[in-house]
């Protein structure tokens, strides 16, 4: 009897994967943004100047600040949309891990220089 109750309680308290999916996808996008902003600042003097938020650190200050803000904004928005439901995590995991993997490659200067 008590085992059945415990099983029912376990099933009742299983949470949706939406919040997790929002965190995963936004982390992938945030990482990718770091790489993309780095390349953009490297290729354009205008973008580079726009990213100088703190002069001693140069454009790196703006590239990372904007990427972090974008990551947090995407996280907050997707969490708001998905928190109460289950989403296809397999696809989101794939996209997020591809974004993160691409970020590792794109931040490598010889690869970034191809663009």
């Amino acid at each position, binding site marked *: 009897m008590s085992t059945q109750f415990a099983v029912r309680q376990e099933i009742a308290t*299983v949470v949706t994967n939406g919040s997790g999916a929002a965190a*995963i996808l936004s*982390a992938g996008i945030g990482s990718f943004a770091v790489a993309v902003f780095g390349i953009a600042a490297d290729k354009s003097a205008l973008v580079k100047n726009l990213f100088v938020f703190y002069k001693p650190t140069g454009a790196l200050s703006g590239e990372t600040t904007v990427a972090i803000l974008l990551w947090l904004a995407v996280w907050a928005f997707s969490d708001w949309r998905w928190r109460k439901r289950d989403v296809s995590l397999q696809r989101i995991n794939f996209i997020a891990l591809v974004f993160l993997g691409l970020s590792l490659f794109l931040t490598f200067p010889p690869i970034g220089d191809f663009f």
Partner: protein
Amino acid sequence: MEITTHSLWTLVHGMGFGALYLLAGTGAIALLYQRFAADGYTQASRGSDRFLGIYLTAMAALAWLTVLSGTYIIYPWYRATPPPATTNLLAYPRALLLSHPATKQWHLVGMEWKEHVAWLVPIAITMAAFLAIKYARDLRTHSQLRTALSGFVILSLLAAGIAGFFGAMLDKNAPVDGGQNIRLVHGEKE
């Protein structure tokens, strides 16, 4: 025995926060393997669920401290521009590296990669810590969340390893030095 304030900050950034992150990262992989192994959850207590969340949160704090101290305290000293006609570039690490063909690539590849790749670490590990805290014991019913958590921890460790390697090599070729001297040990008079 003395150390300069700039050297001390470099030590705190690299040997303190950064190296500790790398150590914690290897520990995290062992911990995740143990937890997510086939029988890991049947043996694990709720206390160990909480421990995983606290452990990854501590790693996230270390990652943020590493990138923020690196970007806003040490990097400005590294990239400081020497005044015109300066011949001794020891106080200007970037200019020193760029002044010699044999060391130029340490900046152009090493530092350029390090300064960006390091920022992937706090993003990835903050997400992993969030999953561990938010889902805790429910991770056992979400295999895809476990996959993402493990994948991001491993890739964060890879990114931290790249940043750490280049940080060590850059400091070896052109150390960030300067500021006030701090006397650590008073020597005896000879």
